[in-house]
Each structure stands twice: as structure tokens, then as C-alpha cells.
């Protein structure tokens, strides 16, 4: 690997054309093929890199340098399966060789399928190469693998262990630093044929502060304006009676998160008060713990809420699988239980299963997310967009779709819609099924971030 890197450093990008001519003129010359291969890697020209290193490998009967070059070339050309397969062959052909192991780490690190698993495997390969006495520049491989796993602090420690240029670059990119973000979001919710709710509006502001990836805090203020009509469906001999209902709900959320290398926790404390024609309060606390287990992240969520009309519990399990560098799917189950403080209604429970997908491309300004929830939810707390859905009626099923677009290097605009069905038990038809009303919630917002971002060039 070092030999390759040295060669790459020596060959200027402009030399490639001359080398291509030499490559055609001296097809049996290893040095020419290797120099062209190195130049093509430096120029990010995967086609020529593969061509040159393939010939170099053939001429040399597969020496270490040419096979390393070929793995890197296939990675550059996007043939990640081929690169990984050849890297495994390389380790088999050159056992206990740090360069071979580090090359496997390289191939794994750029493997776009199941990137979380690839990053964990890559880190292991680099660590094995270091244990075998490989150059301390391999700490850079460990560092970037950790960056890929979101562990900036761990990455920073790894980069600091080498004096190589890549280490200095990595150290600078992952310097412990504060980053901040702010989000503003607003939206409208429409209730179709609901007994009394007609619409609500909401608006929220969130500000956050984070130290590298290790710790972060945020505060969210949210206001919901509720409009409704009491006894909308009732009629009297004098005609319809319809009393407007107006209420306002204010929510304050405090959030905190911390993580170690592959585990973390995200805690939330929320307070809500509804005033106007409805008078209610709520205090909710809970959070989510997670662990990265190659190739997935497992999470467990728990919330406990004390409402003015009862108490609430929420437990959930979720699994997140990054399928490619851009795509991830997730799924989970959630159980909610609300026990009314008084009255005959007793406990309401609900179990919901959900599945979602998100698309967060690294090189495209658009992103998107979609999820479907099936099953009852009673006053669920939404962790991702901190909010309480504190309707009296259970939410039966819902689907959400949102999209975001980068509006600059540090600004993202987003919008989305969630459509759900609210169960209305008192209007249940005689066949035992639940009557349902549609609820449509739309939102849009803006998120601004500041602070360093660690990105590696191939």
C-alpha cells in the first residue's frame, strides 16, 4: 500500500497521457503499467486504473503491489464486489501481511452495500494490519471507518496516532468542536368528519448544540393552535347548534444525547399545556437507547407521561438497516397504554408496527423518507419530530412521506405529509368495527447547521 501511495504521489496527473502512450508502446513493461495505474488512481480514472493494474498483475504473476493496485482500481471504478473479492484473495495469498489486510480494509470501507457492516469490518481489517506491524498510516483507515459509523471522537483518536499526512487531515476534519443547528417548522392538520375537531396549526422552533458526535443538547418550543366545533352533528328544533372551540397547546422539549463507539442514548423531557376551551397538561419523559450491531442499529424506546386526565406508557423496539450509503430501511413495533385518571374507560392500549425507508444521498441535494404505521397508537410520542399526538382517540394507522432539499452547504428545506385514521369508539358501527376519521397533517420547515463536517476524498 505504501509503495502504491508513494508512486501515486510521484506521478502527476498530467503525466497520464504520456504514460498511456508508453503503455501502448511497451505492453510487457511492468513499471510502465504500474506507473500508469498509479497515475490513473491519482486522477480518479477508474477505467485506466483497472486496465493498467490488470496488465501489471498479469505481467508480474500477481505481485503484491499490482494486486493492491487492482483492488483500489476496482473500488474506484465502482466494482465493489470485485474489489472486495480480490482483496479477500489477496489476504489469502499474502497471509499475515499488513498491506494485504489494509487493502481489504480499503475495499470494505468503500463497499456501498450495508455500509455500517462494511465500516465495522474495515476497522477490524485495519486494526489487524496494525497489530501485524503495518505502517501507522493505517490508523487513518481506522479513523475514516469510525467516521462512517458516526464516531467522530473515536476517529479523532485514531487519526492522532499517526504522523502521516492522512492523519493530519483526519485530525483536522474531526477536531472536537461545537456545532449548532436550528430548525423551524410549521404545519396544518385537517380533520375530516371528526365529531368536533376541524383543524389545527402548529409551529415549532428547535435549537441544538453538539460537541463532536459525543454529546448534544437541544431545546424545542412548539405551539399548536386547535380549532373545532362542539356538537357539530347535533340538531335542535331551533336548528343546528355549533359552538366554536379554540384551544392552544404549548410544548417545551429538552433533549440530550450521548454516545460511545457503538452505543448511545437520546433522552427527552417534554412539558405541554393546553389552554382555552380545553384545559390539560402533560409531562412526558423518556428516550431511546441504541447499539450498532453489524449490520444494523437496534433501538429501544421508552416514554412515560403524566397527563392531567391519566397516565401514559410507551415502549418500542426498532431496527435500522443501512442498505447502501444512500438508502436505509427501518422497522419497529411500539406498544402504548393510557390509563384514564377517572371515568369508566379504564386502560386503552395499542400495539403498532411500522416500516420505513429513507434516501439520503451524499451527492444529491434531495432526500426523502417514507413510513407506514399499522396498528393502534394511544397518544404516541413521536421521537424523530418531537411531539405528542395527544388526541383522545387512538390513531389506527398512518403513512408519512417527507422530502428535503439542500438549499446551500448548511441549509436544508423540508416538507412532508402524514395521513392517519383516528378511531372514534363512540361512533362504532354495530358490526363491532371502529369508525375512523381521517387526519391529514402537513408540515414544512428549514434546518440550518453550523460546525465542521468530516468528509473523505477517495
Amino acid at each position, binding site marked *: 500500500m505504501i509503495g502504491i501511495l508513494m508512486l501515486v504521489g510521484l506521478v502527476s496527473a498530467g503525466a497520464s497521457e504520456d504514460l498511456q502512450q508508453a503503455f501502448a508502446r511497451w505492453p510487457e513493461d511492468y513499471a510502465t503499467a504500474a506507473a500508469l495505474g498509479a497515475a490513473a488512481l491519482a486522477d480518479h480514472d477508474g477505467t485506466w486504473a483497472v486496465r493498467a493494474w490488470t496488465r501489471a498483475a498479469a505481467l508480474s504473476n500477481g505481485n*503484491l*503491489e499490482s494486486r493492491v493496485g487492482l483492488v483500489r482500481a476496482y473500488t474506484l471504478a465502482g466494482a465493489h464486489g470485485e474489489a472486495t473479492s480480490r482483496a479477500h484473495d489477496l489476504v489469502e495469498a499474502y497471509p499475515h501481511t499488513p498491506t494485504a489486510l489494509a487493502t481489504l480494509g480499503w475495499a470494505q470501507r468503500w463497499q456501498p452495500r450495508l455500509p455500517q457492516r462494511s465500516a465495522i469490518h474495515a476497522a477490524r481489517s485495519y486494526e489487524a494490519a496494525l497489530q501485524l506491524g503495518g505502517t501507522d498510516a493505517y490508523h487513518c483507515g481506522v479513523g475514516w471507518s469510525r467516521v462512517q459509523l458516526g464516531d467522530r471522537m473515536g476517529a479523532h483518536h485514531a487519526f492522532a496516532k499517526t504522523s502521516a499526512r492522512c492523519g493530519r487531515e483526519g485530525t483536522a476534519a474531526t477536531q472536537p468542536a461545537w456545532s449548532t443547528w436550528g430548525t423551524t417548522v410549521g404545519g396544518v392538520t385537517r380533520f375530516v368528519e371528526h365529531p368536533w375537531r376541524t383543524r389545527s396549526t402548529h409551529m415549532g422552533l428547535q435549537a441544538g448544540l453538539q460537541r463532536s458526535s459525543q454529546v448534544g443538547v437541544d431545546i424545542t418550543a412548539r405551539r399548536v393552535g386547535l380549532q373545532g366545533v362542539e356538537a357539530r352533528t347535533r340538531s335542535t328544533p331551533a336548528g343546528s347548534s355549533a359552538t366554536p372551540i379554540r384551544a392552544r397547546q404549548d410544548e417545551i422539549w429538552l433533549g440530550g444525547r450521548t454516545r460511545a463507539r457503538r452505543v448511545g442514548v437520546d433522552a427527552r423531557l417534554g412539558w405541554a399545556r393546553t389552554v382555552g376551551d380545553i384545559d390539560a397538561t402533560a409531562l412526558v419523559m423518556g428516550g431511546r437507547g441504541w447499539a450498532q450491531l453489524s449490520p444494523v442499529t437496534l433501538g429501544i424506546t421508552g416514554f412515560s407521561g403524566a397527563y392531567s386526565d391519566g397516565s401514559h406508557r410507551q415502549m418500542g423496539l426498532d431496527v435500522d438497516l443501512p442498505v447502501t450509503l444512500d438508502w436505509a430501511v427501518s422497522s419497529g413495533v411500539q406498544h402504548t397504554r393510557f390509563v384514564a385518571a377517572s371515568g369508566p374507560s379504564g386502560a386503552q392500549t395499542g400495539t403498532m408496527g411500522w416500516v420505513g425507508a429513507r434516501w439520503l444521498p451524499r451527492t444529491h441535494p434531495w432526500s426523502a423518507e417514507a413510513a407506514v404505521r399499522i396498528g393502534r397508537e394511544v397518544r404516541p410520542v413521536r421521537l424523530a419530530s418531537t411531539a405528542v399526538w395527544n388526541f383522545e382517540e387512538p390513531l389506527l394507522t398512518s403513512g408519512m412521506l417527507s422530502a428535503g432539499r439542500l438549499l446551500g452547504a448548511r441549509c436544508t428545506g423540508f416538507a412532508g405529509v402524514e395521513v392517519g385514521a383516528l378511531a372514534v369508539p363512540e361512533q362504532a358501527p354495530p358490526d363491532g368495527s371502529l369508525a375512523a376519521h381521517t387526519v391529514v397533517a402537513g408540515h414544512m420547515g428549514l434546518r440550518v447547521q453550523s460546525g465542521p463536517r468530516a468528509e473523505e476524498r477517495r
Partner: protein
Amino acid sequence: MSIWIRFTVAAMVLGVTSAAVASDDPRLYQASYDLESIQDYAGALGKMDQIGGEQQGYVYHLRRGWLLYLLGRHGDSAAAYRAAVEAAPDSLEARQGLVLPLMAMKRWLDAEAVCVELLSAAPTDYRGNSRLAFILYSMGRYGAAADRYEVVLTLYPSDVEMRAGLGWSLLKQGKTAEARSAFEAVLQVAPSHVSAREGLDAVASL
């Protein structure tokens, strides 16, 4: 002049010329050597080209191969050496010569084949072994090159060029400690050896 007379005159001229060239062969060879000694390779080749067809034997082809090689006409040189090999199929020196233009043209596979052929007849031949070592190195076959350098060094342990070549072959395989040892051994007896110094610097930079 009638056609008959013209034919007769031409026949006489050709006959005289042919006889003169034949009798001048030693002098043409000597003139060629003299011109080569003053680095007039084109002139030296010109003298060889004056040698008549019947006299164009093994030595003629061998010498032409050499002079063409010196002139940088490597393709012609290889053809001349191959003619020499044909003229003396068991010759070692013709094969030793043939390797030179092939190496100059970076036709390593052909050069390797010639060396292998040569070494099958003379396994300890210095030129065959040393050139094969360099050829293997040039094809990136560093392990095989190191083995071949070791063969030469067994027979010629004081050869610093071969030891430096061994050092580079080891270095390219990542055997830095052994490479360092080889370079240091060269510099112990040839402190100004450029390649060994560069090799040691390369080891130090890793």
C-alpha cells in the same frame, strides 16, 4: 554499343567487384572495429554491409546485431542476432546478444524466453542469470528476481550490482529488513553506489 557488348562489360565489372570484396573481408572487419572504437557505429556497420553475401556467416550476423544495437536500431539488431542464432544454434553468445535489444525494447517476455533457453544450456552463465534477474524485476516478479539475484551472488558474491538488485527486489516485496541489509552490504564496500543509497533512503522513508 551492342547489347552483347554491354552484357559482357557488366559481367566483368560484377566479377571483379565480387572478387575484390571477398579478398577485402579481413580488412573490412578491421575497418569496422576501428570505426567502432571511435564510436562511428554507422561507419562500422557500413563496412560490415560491404561484406559479400557468401561471406555473411555467424560472425557477420553477430557483429551486425551488436552494431545495430549500439545504433539504437533494436528491431534490426534482434533480427541480426536471430540470424546469428540460426547460423550457430548452440551458440551462447548470440543469445546473450539477442537479449540486449529485446531488453531495450522492453520485450521482457521474449527476453525471458531467450534467457531461459540460454540457461538451460549453461545454468551458471553470468550474463544469462544477471539479465534474467533484471528481466524478472522489470516484469514485477520480485520474488523470482530475488531468487535469480541470489543465484548470481552465490557464484559472484562480490558483485555489488547484483546485490543492489537483490535489495530492490526484497524491498518491492515489503521485506524491508532484508532489503536494508542488502543495501548496507553494498555501501560497505562501494560507499558511492547510487542505487544502493537510493534503496536505503527508500527503506528509511517507509
